[in-house]
C-alpha cells in the first residue's frame, strides 16, 4: 500500500462492516483444491499463427477472404447487371459523403458486403473497416464545414454495436485477438477525433463529442473483453458458436437464474455511464 491518505480511516459508523467471520477452513481448502486442479489442466501457451485448433478445410474458404475479394465480386455483379456504368458508379460511390447522390449506393454496397460475410471474425473486421469509413466521412464533413447528420452517427453506432455482438460469438483466443485489434484501432481513432475536435466549429462539437464517447465505450469494452471474456459474452452474447467455451457453472445461492441476468447493451447501465458488471467504469 502506498500513498496513504491521512483520512484513510472510514467513519466509525461503518465499523460494523469491518468484522468478517473466520473463513470456513474446509470450504476454503475445497476452493483452493479446485483452483489448483484448474491450474493443472491449463493449456500450455501456443506460439505461431498456425498453432491454434484445426478448423478444417472450410476455414480456407471463409476466413481468408479479404474485403477486397468481396468488393471485387460486387463489382462483377454490378458490371454484369448494369454494364460499365455500374462499375464506374460503384467506384465513384466509394468517395461519396452523406448528402452526395451516390452515397446511397455506397451504403448499399456496404450492406451487401456485410450480407456476404458468414465468418463472425471476418464480419467484425469488416465492421471495423466500416467504422473507419464513417470516421473518415465525419472528418471530411468537419473539414468542409458541413453538418454531421444523425443518420451518419446512427450508422456508426450500429457498426460498433454489431462488431461487439459478433465478437461475442468467437472463441476465447479469437475474441481476445480481435478485441486487441479493436482496442488499438479505437485508441488511434480517438486520437484523430480529439485532434479534429480541437479545430472543429462549435456547431459540430456535440456530434464529435458523441463520436468520442462511442469510441471510448468500444475501447473500454474491448479491454473488458480481453480481461474477462466470460463476462463480456454474458452481457453481449445472445448467440454463441459451437466452439465457444461452456458457460460458467457459477450460480448464486438461492437464485433461480431467470430474468435477472447481466444487462444487455441496450439496457440502462449504472450511473456515470459505468456498466454494472463490466465494471471498470473508466473515464
Amino acid at each position, binding site marked *: 500500500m*502506498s*500513498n496513504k*491518505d491521512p483520512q*484513510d*480511516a*472510514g*467513519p466509525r*459508523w*461503518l*465499523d*460494523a*462492516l469491518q*468484522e*468478517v*467471520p473466520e*473463513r*470456513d477452513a474446509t*470450504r*476454503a481448502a475445497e*476452493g*483452493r483444491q*479446485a*483452483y*489448483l486442479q*484448474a*491450474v*493443472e489442466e*491449463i*493449456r500450455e501457451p501456443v506460439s505461431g499463427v498456425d498453432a491454434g485448433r484445426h478448423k478444417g478445410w472450410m476455414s480456407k474458404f471463409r476466413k481468408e477472404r479479404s474485403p477486397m475479394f468481396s468488393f471485387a465480386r460486387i463489382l462483377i455483379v454490378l458490371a454484369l447487371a448494369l454494364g460499365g456504368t455500374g462499375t464506374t458508379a460503384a467506384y465513384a460511390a466509394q468517395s461519396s459523403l452523406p448528402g452526395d447522390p451516390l452515397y446511397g449506393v455506397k451504403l448499399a454496397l456496404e450492406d451487401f458486403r456485410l450480407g456476404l460475410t458468414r465468418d463472425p471474425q471476418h464480419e467484425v473486421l469488416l465492421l471495423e473497416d466500416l467504422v473507419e469509413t464513417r470516421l473518415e466521412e465525419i472528418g471530411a464533413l468537419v473539414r468542409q464545414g458541413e453538418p454531421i447528420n444523425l443518420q451518419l452517427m446512427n450508422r456508426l453506432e450500429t457498426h460498433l454495436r454489431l462488431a461487439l455482438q459478433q465478437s461475442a460469438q468467437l*472463441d*476465447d*483466443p479469437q*475474441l*481476445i*485477438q480481435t*478485441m486487441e485489434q479493436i482496442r488499438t484501432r479505437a485508441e488511434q481513432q480517438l486520437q484523430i477525433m480529439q485532434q479534429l475536435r480541437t479545430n472543429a466549429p462549435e456547431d459540430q462539437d456535440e456530434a464529435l463529442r458523441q463520436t468520442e464517447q462511442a469510441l471510448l465505450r468500444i475501447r473500454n469494452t474491448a479491454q473488458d*473483453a480481453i*480481461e*474477462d*471474456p*466470460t*463476462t463480456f459474452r454474458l452481457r453481449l452474447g445472445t448467440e454463441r458458436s459451437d466452439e465457444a467455451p461452456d458457460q*460458467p457453472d*457459477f450460480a*448464486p*445461492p*438461492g*437464485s*433461480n437464474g431467470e430474468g*435477472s441476468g447481466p444487462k444487455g447493451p441496450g439496457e440502462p447501465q*449504472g*450511473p*456515470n455511464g459505468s456498466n*454494472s*458488471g*463490466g*465494471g*471498470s*467504469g473508466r*473515464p
Partner: protein
Amino acid sequence: MSAQDAKWLQDARRRDRKVLAEIYDELSPELYRYAYRLLGAADAAEDIVSETFLRFLRAIEAGGGPRDNLRAYLYRIAHNLAMDVHRRSPADADAPDPDVPVAPLSDDPARQAEDRISAEIARGLIWRLTPDQRQVILLKFFQGLSNDEVAAALEKPVGAVKALQHRGLSAMRRMLKRDHGWDEMEA
C-alpha cells in the same frame, strides 16, 4: 503496477503453476473478505473467490487477462460477480447471516448509537451507492487500498476517486438520517 504484480503476471502468462498457486494463496483471503463485506454470506463469498480465479485462469489461457495491475483486476472481477449475485437475490444477500456474531453494545451512549448501525444496515447503504462509489468505499476503508490502488482498480484518476469517496460518504450519511433517523453530529 507493483513489481510483485508485474512478476506475477509475467510468470502467470508462462503458466508457471507455482506462481499461479502463490497468487491464489496471497490474494484469495482478501478477495473473500471483500466479497463477504459486499454480500454478507460466506458461501456466496467463497463462490465468488472461486469464480474470480477461474476467470483469471481462463483469460490467461486464452492470451488475455489483466494488462498490468493484477490485484485491481481481480477486485474488478469479484465486484462484477458480487453485483450479479446481489441483483439476482438482493433479499437473500442483505439478510443477516446467522454465522456472524453480534457485537456487544458499548457502555458509551455515543458508541451505542453507532453500534446500532448493524452490518446489515451498513451493507444496505453500500448497495444503494453507485457502483463506483461502492467500490471506492469498500476498497479504501475495508480492504486497505491506497488512493492510487483504488484508482488503478477503477481505472480512474486519483482525483475522481477522492470525489467518489466524498460523494459516497455524503450519500450514506443522508440515507442514515432519512431512513434511520441517525445523525452523526448527535451521535
